[in-house]
C-alpha cells in the first residue's frame, strides 16, 4: 500500500505516494530524479547519500521516505542559489577537493552542516566532522582545505 507523503525539496513542494519500505535515497533518486545524491554502501557507512533534512545532515539511505513526510530537504542540486555556487562548491573546485566526484555531493552536504555548527573549524574539527563520509580518491587532504576555504568565505560574508 502506498503511503502519501508531502515534502519540500530544494524549495519545491512535492507530493507523492511511496511504498512504506522505500528508502529516502531511493525516493530522491528514482522518483524525483535528483541523482546527485549517491549510494555507496548498504551499511550506512559511506555518507555518499548525505542530504540536509530539516537543517540536519542525514544519510538518506538510513531514512524511510515515509518518515520524511512534512520535512524540508536540500540536496546537492539545491545548493547553488540563483546561479551562484555555494561557498563549499566553490571551495571544492578551487582546492581540488574532488576527483571522481562520487563522494562529493555527500561530502559537501555534510560540510554544510559542519560549517553551520562551527563556522570557523580547526583542521582536527573538520576531519572529525567528516568521519562518516568516505572518499577513496582524494585522501581527504584537499577536502579539508576546501572546507577551510569555504569557512573563510563564510567569515568574509558575516563580517560584511
Amino acid at each position: 500500500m502506498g503511503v502519501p507523503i508531502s515534502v519540500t525539496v530544494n524549495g519545491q513542494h512535492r507530493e507523492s505516494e511511496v511504498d512504506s519500505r522505500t528508502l529516502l535515497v531511493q525516493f530522491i533518486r528514482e522518483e524525483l530524479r535528483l541523482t546527485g545524491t549517491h549510494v555507496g554502501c548498504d551499511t550506512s557507512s559511506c555518507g555518499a547519500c548525505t542530504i540536509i533534512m530539516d537543517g540536519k545532515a542525514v544519510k538518506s539511505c538510513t531514512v524511510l521516505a515515509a518518515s520524511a513526510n512534512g520535512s524540508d530537504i536540500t540536496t546537492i542540486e539545491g545548493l547553488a542559489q540563483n546561479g551562484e555556487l555555494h561557498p563549499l562548491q566553490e571551495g571544492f573546485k578551487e582546492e581540488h577537493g574532488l576527483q571522481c566526484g562520487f563522494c562529493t555531493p555527500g561530502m559537501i552536504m555534510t560540510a554544510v552542516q559542519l560549517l553551520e555548527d562551527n563556522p570557523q573549524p580547526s583542521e582536527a574539527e573538520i576531519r572529525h566532522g567528516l568521519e562518516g563520509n568516505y572518499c577513496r580518491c582524494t585522501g581527504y587532504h584537499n577536502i579539508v582545505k576546501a572546507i577551510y576555504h569555504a569557512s573563510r568565505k563564510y567569515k568574509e560574508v558575516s563580517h560584511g
Partner: protein
Amino acid sequence: MIQCKTSKEIGGMGHSMRRKEDARFIQGKGQYVDDIKLPEMLYMDIVRSPFAYAKITNINIEKAMALPGVLAVITGKDLEQYNLHWMPTLMSDTQMVLPVDTVMYQSQEVAAVIATERYIAADAVELVEVEYEPMQPVMDPYKAMEADAPVLRIDKEGKTDNHIWHWEAGDKEATDRIFDDAEVKVKEQMHIPRIHVASIETCGCVANYDKVNNHLTMYMTTQAPHAIRTVIALVAGHVGLTEEKVRVISPDIGGGFGGKVPVYPGYVIAIAASFLIGKPVKWIEDRSENLQADSFARDYHITAEMAGTKDGKILATRFKLLCDHGYTDAAANPSKFPTGLFSICTGSYDYGHSYAEADAVYTNKPPGGVAYRCSFRVTEAVHAIERITDCYAQEINKDPAQLRFDNFINKDQFPYKSALGWEYDSGDYHQGLQKAMEVVGYDDLRKEQAEKRARGELMGIGISTFTEIVGAGPSREFDILGIKMFDSAEIRVHPTGKAIARFGTKSQGQGHETTYAQIVAEELGIPAEHIQVEEGDTDTAPYGLGTYASRSTPTAGAAAAIASRKLREKAKKIAAYLLEVSEEDLEWEPGKFFVKGAPDKAKTIQEIVFAAYTNHPQGMEAGFEATHYYDPPNLTFPSGAYICVVDIDKETGEVKVRRFVAIDDCGHIINPMIVQGQVHGGLTQGLAPALYEELIYDEEGNILNGTFMDYLVPTAVESPSWETGHTVTPSPHHPIGAKGVGESPTVGAPPAIVNAVVDALSHLGVTHMEIPITAPKVWKILKEKGAL
C-alpha cells in the same frame, strides 16, 4: 622545476588549471551508471552462494517466478544452452558466468532475477531456493599446493593439482652463486594481503539490447570500453552481436583503481537478460557484493632475500612468490606477464644479479586479482625490495638512508639495464632522497628518536625509495587478449578555432578532461578552456586500451601531443601560404606562427584554422583534424623518495603517522594541482593496507569483513595531512617528457610505513611486521618483547 611555456590564458603544461569536469560534479550533475534510467528498464539482482565450495543439487525458481513483477530467473543451465555459462578471463583462464553444478567461493553468483523494480528483484532473490551440498574448501594457498590437496578445477580436463602457472626471471645459477659466497644474507617472508579497491561507486551496468535493430548499447563501469566491445563481439558474435552492433558507453565513473577493468559475471548476465527479454536491464551491485565477489587485489606470499657485503653494497636479490588467485586467474595483466611487472623488484639500486620465481595457485576464494592502483604487481615488488633493503641495513647496522645513497643507480647511468632486463629510462634518485630528507629534517628526527628511546617512547622513521614501471606498453611485448597496448587521440579543430579531442582512455577521476586539454593547448596554443575532451563512447572515440596502470599520460597523452604536432605542421603550411613566405621563414610561439625577425607579421592559430576551412592552399586537404595511435617505444619509470614518521602508543599499540613526506618524480608535470591530488589519494590508498585493510576469510571460506562496517577504509580522521613535493627528471623517450604518477604513492607508501614501524621497534629485536599493522598486532609484539 616546473616551467610554463604558455600563458595562463592558454593554460598549457605546468599550469594548475582548475578542473573542467568539476562544474557538473559539484552540482550533482555527474552522470554515473546508476543515474541512467531508460524507458521500460528492468532490474537485475543476484542470488549468491552462502558456501565457499559446494555442489548445487537443485535450484527451485517457482516461488520467485510467482512474485508479481518478476520476469525471469536465469540460472547456469539457462546460459549453458547458449554456451554462455563460462567466459574467458583476461589471463586465458575460464570463469563461470553462472554455475551449472558447483560453486567455488562464497558470494559467487548462482542465479539472477530480473524484475520490474529494484526492490522486487531483491525480494525475489530471497525466494529462489537453492539446495547445496557443501564441501570442505581449500583456503590456504600453501595447502592447496600440497600433493594430497583436493583438485578444485575438475572442469579442466586432466587437471591433477591446483597449480596454475610457474614464472621466472633472471639468472638463477649466477644469483645463487653470489648468495653462496656473500658476507651478508638477509631473508624475510612477507604476505601482501588480499585487499579491495573499494571505489565508492560499486560496479554496474545497463544493458540495452534493441531487437529490431539487433544492436546492443552497454552502459557500464569500465575503465577499458573499447576492449570490452571487442570482448563482447568475440564472445557473443555467434549469436549475432558482431562488433559494429555493439556500443559500449562508460559514463562518469566513481573511482576505478583497476577494479573496473575485468569483466564480471553480472555484466554478462545483464547482456544475456536484455538479449532474451528485449528490454534494458540494469544491474548495480551493492557494497557487500562488491567487497565479497569482485575487485580483490594482491594476495602474494613473498620470500625476499638480499645478499651484500659487510659494509653495505647490495650484490644480489632473490624472490620466491606464491600467488593466490582464488578459483580462477582473473587478473588483468598484459597477456605475456602472469606476474604483471613484478620484475621491477630489483628496485632503484645498482647491482648485477637477481632471480625471481612465482607459482600461482587456485583456492576457494573470489577470482582475481586486479591491478589495484598499481602497474600490475608493482606494489608487491616495491614492498619486497624496500622491506628487504631495510632488513639488510638493520642487519649490518647501517642507516637506511645512507645504505640507499650507497647503492642507488647514478643519474649518469641511465638508460640503465636492470638485472631482470628492464631498461630504466631516467632518474635522479640521490636528488629525490636528499630533498625528502631535507624537507622532513632527517637528522633532527634521528636525534629526537634517540632521546625518545632513552625515555622509553616509541618513534620510528621509515624510508622508501622506489622505482615504478608504467605506461604499458610497447606493442612488441604488451597486449591484452592479443590487442596491442597502444592508445589514441583524435583532435578536430572547428573553424572558429575551438576543438574537440577524443581518446581511447577513460578517466575515473584523474581529470583527463583538463589534462588532455592542457597538452593540446601546449602544443597548439588553443586555450585549454576551448578544448572539449571526450572519452568512453566506443562509437565516437578512437580505439584504445583504456585507463589503468598509470598508462593514460604515457600513451594517450603522448598521442595527444603527436596528433597536435601533426596539426601544427599543417598550420605551418597554411601560415606560410597566408603570409606569403616559405615555411623555413616561420617561427612558432604558443598560439601563432610569425616571420623570423618580423614578429608582427604573424598568423594566430585561430586565423590559420579558419583558413583551413575558408581559404586553404590549393591542393591541400581541407579541414583541421588529426588522429594518432601511439605505440610507446619503452615504458616510463617514475620514482619517489618517501619518508614516514610514526609514533606508537605503547598502551594500545596504535600506530600514528605523524608526518609523511613524499617527493615524487614523474617527469614533466601537466597540471601540478592534479598531480598533487593524485599523490594524496594514492598515499591514502597506501596507508590503508599498511595499517587497516585486509579481506579476512575463515577456514570454512566465510569472509569475515565483507561490508563497510568491518572493512576499514580510512576516513579523514585516520588520514594524515600529506607533505608532497617533486623532482623533475623527464622521460627522454616520451613526447612531452611525462611519466605518469597515479600509482606511485600507493606503491611507495606501504613499505615506508612498515619500515617506520619496524624502525620504532628495532631496538627490541623486531625485523619485520606483516601488513596491515593493526594495534593488536603491535601490542602483542610489545608484550612478547617485554616492552609494555
